[in-house]
């Protein structure tokens, strides 16, 4: 049951929709009276972390089996969903803080600047996610997109430190590490 290129292409639109829904729902929740903005910011951050790891790990998953190989074409959707959800996460954080002053005041706290840095690294990746940018940048595109690795490292550090995120951060790191290991294994034992 492997996916053909056509199937992955038709899968793409429903996938965009599905990936956009949680972020939209969280924003809608934030607009409700008596919304717990801290909790919504929390949930959006966890979701962004999972999406980012999925986007990066998708290459590893796709290499596990020929049947999964086409999944790699859905990577852009996951990457942009991770970025979009991170932006939603930032918005919810800013709403929860309610003013600029306290935001600036905690900018140097490790649990916070790691989050800002991770998001900033994702900006050039999102901006160059189009086919046109891929063509224009040529080989440099791949090098630029490798910024995803420091971005995910910072994002997981942020998750680990900021608030009760140790378990999630370690689990996500374990997923990435295990996928990298299976990648090396496949390289050696050609099947």
């Amino acid at each position, binding site marked *: 049951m492997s996916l053909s290129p056509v199937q992955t292409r038709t899968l793409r639109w429903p996938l965009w929709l599905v990936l956009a829904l949680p972020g939209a729902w969280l924003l809608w929740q934030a607009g409700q009276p008596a919304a717990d903005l801290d909790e919504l910011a929390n949930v959006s951050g966890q979701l962004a972390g999972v999406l980012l790891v999925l986007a990066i790990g998708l290459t590893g998953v796709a290499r596990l089996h020929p049947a999964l190989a086409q999944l790699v074409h859905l990577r852009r959707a996951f990457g942009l969903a991770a970025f979009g959800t991170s932006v939603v996460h930032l918005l919810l954080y800013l709403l929860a803080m309610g003013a600029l002053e306290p935001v600036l005041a905690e900018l140097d706290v490790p649990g916070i600047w790691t989050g800002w840095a991770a998001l900033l690294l994702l900006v050039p990746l999102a901006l160059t996610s189009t086919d046109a940018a891929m063509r224009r940048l040529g080989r440099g595109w791949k090098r630029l997109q490798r910024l995803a690795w420091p971005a995910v490292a910072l994002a997981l550090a942020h998750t680990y430190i900021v608030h*009760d995120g140790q378990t999630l951060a370690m689990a*996500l790191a374990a997923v990435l590490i295990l996928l990298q290991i299976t990648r090396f294994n496949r390289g050696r034992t050609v099947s």
Partner: protein
Amino acid sequence: MTLKYTLIALAPLALALAGPAAATGKMTCKVAASDVKPQAELVTALTKQGWTVTKAKPDGGCYEVYGTTPEGDRVEAYFDPVTFEKLYVSQRGKVLFQKQ
């Protein structure tokens, strides 16, 4: 073979998402339930000291408070539910205060 790898790789995530979200275990207070004072009293006392409390709830037998300190730091703090003594204050994971 490869399916096994996929499952192994995704297992930690499943475990993390299925794990309990309730008690964080950051602080525990062992006190008699009959001695515990109402949470609203703590919030009132903190507000009088200059805190802005956004959320308060019991956690690990203590009271856990989210809010802004009189110094203007956005924090998560733990208090003894009987004496209202400050036990632990953390600003985005940076420990600002811990009772020795």
